[in-house]
């Protein structure tokens, strides 16, 4: 029997705890300070009004969403600090950080505000109750009740029920009974069948504990009757189980079996309900997850779309900027090009004019003197000097012009076959006077039948320059020979002189213009090297090659190689 009672006692405890876990009184109290709740009929829904942070805070608290509640409290700018602190501390209580809350409650328990004082005492009592410090609970609850202001239904029922439980555990059955009766009256006044049924059940337990089985049975019956229309399966199953136990005690086995059956059915239903509820919950979780996944995908797609759009826009922007920059550069380049073309045209025109107009008078001068020489057969020495000066002026001018023309790609190169020997003998004739004056022994040892491929005038310039150099650097009474040799498909012209030769050092860089490598000729005049540099570039234009070597017998050998064939 004792074991059974103990079992019931545990059941009883379970009921108590679930009832008080709801915080009805605390929720109610916080809502009394809510402007939104006062203006509207009490709503348990959060509202989307920025001003009603406090409302959302206490609603979230009532719904046990403590994180949200805390957030709303922190965002609240209107409610006074004490209220906010109280709510915060109650959140702490719910999160089982009780000491800090307790300290705060104690610190403000001396407040002259009676409503606040009542709330704090009640909160402290509840705290101690949860910690099973029942003496402190009773003391604070008594203090709370002693405050002479209105006491709400929740306030009273919660305190009385807690005290009834405490007195029961202390086996002060009389006090417990009187408090339970008070609670019963209050619930009856409120027509709360569920609580009435529960209180009857509690009373039944109270008398069952005292072995007053008849009174207990009476209360259990009342509880059973009140529980019948209810839907709270758990309560119903407990009450039915109590009915089964009492029937057993009274040896009413048939009834007991029926109650047990009913209890089993209720228990099954409860389990079923729980299962259904759990399944529904899982379904919901699943569908939420699915929906979340869908939303995630959509969000992802949207994000991807946005990202791509931004990227495209950015690329377009960059392209546009670059295009504008490029267009601007292009414009500048075009302007510069136009300017350059203009300048180039002017330059070409200038060269053409110089080539014509500068060359003409010198050419005419030369022609005039030639004709005079032929006509008058003049042998006056001053005239000889004039020829020499005109010849060297003409060569220098031609060199300069050809160099300038070739450098600006304006030199006309017209390649064809031409006879070598007549060209050489023409040049010999031109330099005849100079050669004779220096008493130089001069020979052309080239087969007459050789034809050379290239531009004839350019070739003349090459030979003229080479011969001019050879004469310059060959002392009086020296020897100059122009000879030739067939090498594969090219013909090499050798211009060999017995002159002063060229130092090895100078030979290395002989085709470059450098002021420091000027060499003095036999008459002490300086040579710039323009002729040689020109010779080199002219040879290249003609598709041949040139080499300058020291003659082992003294002097210099110039080799010029060009394509050749024999005249038919």
């Amino acid at each position, binding site marked *: 029997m004792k074991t059974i009672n103990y079992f019931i006692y545990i059941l009883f405890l379970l009921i108590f705890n679930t009832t008080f876990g709801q915080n009805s009184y605390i929720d109610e109290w916080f809502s009394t300070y809510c402007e939104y709740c006062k203006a509207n009929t009490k709503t348990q829904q959060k509202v989307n009004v920025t001003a009603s942070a406090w409302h959302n805070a206490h609603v979230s608290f009532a719904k046990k969403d403590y994180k949200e509640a805390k957030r709303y409290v922190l965002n609240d700018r209107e409610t006074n600090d004490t209220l906010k602190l109280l709510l915060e501390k109650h959140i702490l209580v719910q999160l089982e950080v009780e000491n800090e809350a307790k300290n705060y409650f104690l610190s403000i328990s001396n407040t002259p505000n009676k409503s606040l004082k009542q709330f704090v005492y009640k909160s402290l009592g509840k705290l101690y109750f949860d910690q099973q410090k029942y003496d402190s609970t009773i003391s604070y609850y008594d203090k709370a009740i002693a405050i002479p202001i209105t006491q709400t239904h929740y306030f009273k029922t919660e305190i009385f029920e807690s005290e009834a439980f405490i007195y029961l555990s202390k086996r002060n059955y009389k006090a417990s009974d009187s408090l339970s009766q008070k609670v019963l009256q209050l619930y009856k006044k409120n027509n709360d069948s569920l609580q009435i049924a529960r209180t009857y059940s509690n009373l039944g337990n109270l008398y069952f504990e005292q072995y007053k089985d008849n009174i207990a049975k009476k209360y259990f019956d009342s509880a059973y009757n009140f529980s019948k229309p209810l839907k709270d399966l758990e309560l119903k199953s407990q009450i039915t189980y109590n009915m089964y136990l009492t029937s057993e005690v009274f040896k009413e086995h048939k009834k007991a079996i029926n109650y047990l059956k009913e209890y089993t059915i209720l228990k099954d239903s409860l389990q079923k309900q729980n299962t259904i509820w759990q399944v529904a919950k899982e379904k919901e979780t699943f569908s939420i997850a699915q929906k979340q996944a869908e939303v995630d995908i959509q969000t992802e797609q949207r994000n991807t779309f946005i990202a791509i759009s931004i990227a495209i826009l950015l690329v377009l922007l960059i392209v546009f900027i670059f295009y504008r920059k490029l267009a601007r550069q292009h414009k500048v380049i075009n302007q510069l090009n136009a300017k350059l073309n203009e300048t180039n045209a002017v330059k070409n025109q200038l060269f053409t004019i110089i080539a014509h107009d500068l060359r*003409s008078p*010198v*050419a005419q001068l030369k022609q005039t003197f030639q004709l005079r020489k032929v006509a008058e057969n003049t042998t006056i020495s001053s005239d000889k000097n004039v020829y020499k000066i005109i010849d060297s002026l003409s060569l220098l001018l031609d060199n300069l012009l050809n160099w300038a023309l070739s450098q600006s*790609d304006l030199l006309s190169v*017209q390649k064809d*076959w031409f*006879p070598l020997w007549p060209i050489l003998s*023409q040049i010999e004739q031109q330099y005849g006077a100079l050669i004779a004056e220096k008493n130089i022994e001069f020979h052309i040892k080239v087969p007459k039948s050789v034809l050379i491929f290239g531009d004839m005038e350019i070739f003349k310039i090459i030979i003229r320059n080479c011969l001019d150099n050879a004469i310059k650097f060959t002392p009086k009474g020296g020897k100059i020979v122009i000879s030739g040799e067939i090498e594969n498909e090219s013909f090499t012209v050798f211009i060999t002189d017995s002159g002063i030769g060229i130092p090895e050092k100078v030979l290395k860089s002989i085709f470059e213009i450098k002021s420091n490598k000027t060499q003095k000729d036999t008459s002490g005049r300086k040579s710039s090297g323009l002729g040689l540099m020109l010779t080199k570039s002219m040879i290249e234009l003609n598709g041949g090659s040139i080499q300058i070597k020291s003659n082992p017998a003294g002097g210099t050998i110039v080799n010029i190689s060009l394509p050749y064939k024999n005249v038919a």
Partner: protein
Amino acid sequence: MDKINILIFEDNLEEIEILKQALSDNYNICGIATNYDDGVKTFNENLPDIAILDIFIDQARDGIRFADYINHHHPIPILFLTNSKDKISFIAAKKQKPYSYLLKPVNPFEIRFAIELAIEKYVDQIGQLTTKDEATLQIDNTLLIKKGNVLVKVAIDDIYYVESDDKYCYIYTNDARFLVQKSLKSFSETLPQNFVSIHRKYVVNTNQILSVHTNDYTVILKNNKDIPVSQRHRKVLLELFTIIK
């Protein structure tokens, strides 16, 4: 035997004077034109053997234009005369391929060479005149013969006979004799059919035969020169005889 006829197209009087002096000894200047229309007229009246054209006449490239006219009406060798070798001067001349040019200043030695080269190029036998002291070049019915510094032209029909002298041969006209650096065999190959070989050493122009003597086997030409007929060629002589008859 005539000198080569040259047409000069040049507007600068001093240049004309220089050219005249350089050419007049060895060539016959058949006309001097100073503008395009004048040039065309002179060309058609005189039909020169060669034309020396200044590229720029009155700042325009009328020399090129005139060359174009010549090439389309009565092609002859053309020698352009120019002051410089810049491309701008030669761009238009390139159309007149093949062409020769002479860069000023001119001297008699160079101009003779340039004329010979122009003729050689014209018949595409570069080197035939310029590389030899005695040479001959056939243009249509005319034979150009180089004799030292002089270039003369002989109508092929005016040749009486050609005499072989080892690797050379002599060309005889009514009043002159020319040495040619060619064997009789290779030279007679280019001659027309009325030139007949009657001896190892002689080729005669049948048009210039006065009489044929079969008794002593000689041929008398119109200039009373008698040429022997060798035994091997007597058959040919008989054929000739029938032709003349």
